[in-house]
Structures are given as C-alpha cells and as structure tokens.
C-alpha cells in the first residue's frame, strides 16, 4: 500500500467505525482462510418511495488495509439509495483485479459486507427474523510468492 495524506487520515481516524445502536440490518463479509471479517450495520431512511442508507457503520477483524477500505467505502455508501449502493459494490468488485491480491481481499470483504447488509435488509421485509447474511470472499489474502519454488520429481 503506497501512502498519501488521505490514506493516512483514514488510518488515523477511520470514518464510520463502530456499531449502530438501532441498526435496521447487518451484513458480514468473511475471509474463510483466516477468520478475518467485516461487519456492516445500516440504518435505512425513506425519501418519497426510495430507500437509502441514512447511516452506516462498520467493524473489522482484520488488517489496516481492511479498515481503510471500510472507512472509504462506507463514506461512499452513506446517503446513497439502494441502487447506488449496489452500483458502488459492483464498481468496487470490478476494480479488484487491478489491486494487489492482499488489498483486493480486504476491499472485497468490505464490499461483500455492504452487499450482505442490503440483502439482509431486503430479506427482512418479508421475514423480520431473517438471519444476518454472510458472504465469503474469493480473493486470497495470502500474498503469493513471486518466485515459487520449482516442482521437482
């Protein structure tokens, strides 16, 4: 991760870190390889007929890159309607190929947690007891060796 002032600001004071006391829904993004996870809490507002993210918070068991990704993406998501949030998640997932593997895993975990929170909210409309949805990431957090040992017979 190369560092600029904005990035360091997110490290020093992650935006939207914590839980929401009266959250309408929660979602989890998880790395099955190492148990790292991101929890997203959302409070949903209604503007005419459209629902939007009134407030959003996150917590993470993970590295600093995950916290920075959580800080940035939740800032982006706040105030967006659900279509906007879904587009944000899609756009983030598209960008993952361009990132180093370990950074991609962190951002994917946050994006999937946001997606899970939205999906949980929608599922709870029909079933208020619907459990919190967890999505697992596909990127690996483990950095691959640039010069892997050659296989020998």
């Amino acid at each position, binding site marked *: 991760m190369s560092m600029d*002032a904005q990035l*360091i600001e997110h490290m*020093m*004071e992650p935006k939207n*870190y914590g839980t929401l006391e009266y959250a309408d829904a929660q979602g989890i993004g998880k790395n099955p390889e190492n148990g790292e996870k991101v*929890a997203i809490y959302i409070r949903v507002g209604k503007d005419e007929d459209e629902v939007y993210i009134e407030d959003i918070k996150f917590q*993470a068991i993970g590295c*600093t890159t995950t*916290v920075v990704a959580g800080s940035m993406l939740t800032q982006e998501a706040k105030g967006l309607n659900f279509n906007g949030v879904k587009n944000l998640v899609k756009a983030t997932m598209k960008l993952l190929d361009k990132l180093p593997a370990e950074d991609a895993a962190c951002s994917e975990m946050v994006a999937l947690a946001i997606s899970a929170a939205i999906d949980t909210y929608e599922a709870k409309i029909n079933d208020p007891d619907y459990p919190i949805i967890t999505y697992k990431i596909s990127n690996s957090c483990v950095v691959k060796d640039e010069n892997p040992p050659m296989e020998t017979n």
Partner: protein
Amino acid sequence: MKTVMIKTHEAWLATLMAGFMSKTQNKQVLFDFSDILFRHFTWLENELIELGESYSYDRDSIPIKVEKLSVMLENIINRLNEIDLQLMSSPDKNLDARISEDIKYMKSVLLKMNDEHITAFNMDRKFPGINLTEEATDALTLFLFEETYKEYELIMIYNYLKAHSKDAYLNRIFQILIDESFFHLKSFGDMGAKMGILAVPRIIMKELYQVQDVVQFLKDGINEELAAKDECKRLAEAVSKDSPKLEMFFDFINHQENYHISLMEDALKYFEKGKNE
C-alpha cells in the same frame, strides 16, 4: 456501573494518548495516571462480574486531535468529573471511595500541568534524528498502525480472560502478557506520536475477547506471534541502513516475542492437560 466502566475505559485511553503527546516530564505522570485508570477499569469490571451483570468493552470513539496539551487535559478532567458523579450508582462504597480519592488527586495534578504544543498529529512521518527512505517510512507507518491496535487488542483479550479466571497459574501468565503488551503499546504509541501519526486504537469486536475456545485462541495466538516476529525481522532489515538504533529496537521486539510464545505454550499445555484429566 456499566456506564462508569465504559467512561473509565475511555478516560484511561484518553490519558494514555495524552502521555504519548507529551514531550516533557508530564509524559511519565500521564502514563502513571493512565495505569491507575486501567486498574480502576479492572476493579469496576470485577465488580460487574461479582454482581453477575453482563458487560462489554464497547466504548465511544475518543477524539484526541489537539494542538495544545491543555485542551486534552481539560478533556480528561471533564471525563474524570463525569466518572466521579456516576460512581454514586456503584453498590461498593469502599471501591467508590478509593476511585474517588484517586480522581481528586489526579485532577489536582492535571490542573497544574504545564501546557505543551502538540506535534503528534502533523503527519510528517519523520522520525526525530533519523532519515528513513520512503519505503522504510511506509513500512514503519503500517507497522505502527497494525501493532498499536494489536497490542491494545491483546491487553483487552488477556484482561478479559484474567477477569474470568480464578486460576493463579493462568492469571500469572495473563498478567505478564498484559504487562508486555502495555510495554509494546507504549513503545509503538510513542513512536507514532514522534512520527505525527498518533491514533487511538479502534474498538474491539466482542467475539475477539469473549473467547469461546481458549485452546484455539492460544494456538492462533502463537502463530500470530510467529508472524509478528517475521514482521519485526523485515522491519529491522528495512530500517537497518538508515538507523542501527531502530534496527536494534525491532530485533529486541522480535526476541521478546519468543518469551510471549513460550508463555502461551505454557498456558496451552496447562489447558490441554486440564481437558484430558
């Protein structure tokens, strides 16, 4: 009671951060006071356990970006006043009196502390007297953020385990690990302040300290300590050209991890022995 414990948790961290910010003789006093507040926190936690009340280590975020130490000191005094007021809700009047007396003294000292100009948030990322390459600076920055949080996390996990154990053998191990993590937290926090990137460690998720499987936690912990050793080795190499002093420090931290691993292995053996008996 729960509120008093949360407020004390916040006051402890605020005072610790003020200690990192200070560059004068105030520093040690603030560190001592933060240690006292941590002990208050553990006493209050113990009282909650004895009363059978559920509690967590959740807390509010703690704003610390100040330009003058006096602003932070005023903030800490306000926090202490709030705790003092809330103590009335505690059933253990002896405990209240002890905490209240400590607060009275600490406030009187804080009120008289000399003011200081704070540089702990200037984001300069320059270590005083040492010229690091950009790569080494980035590596050190990331390390300090990761490890400051990690040490706080470990203090809270071991503290929780200790609070819920009456086993003297294990509690000795947990206490040493808490003390070691405090030393590391203070070292890294101080370095962060010197680099102008001081930050309060983020709030810990409940599932981390409300450990369900202590054996697995210790096994994972040993692996994490091994990874931390590698990280220290890498960092020592990254800064070696620019600063033999920093290289030596990270080698020292690397070797300290051996002791932590050994303690955790002792605890693991003890737990596994207990399971098999």
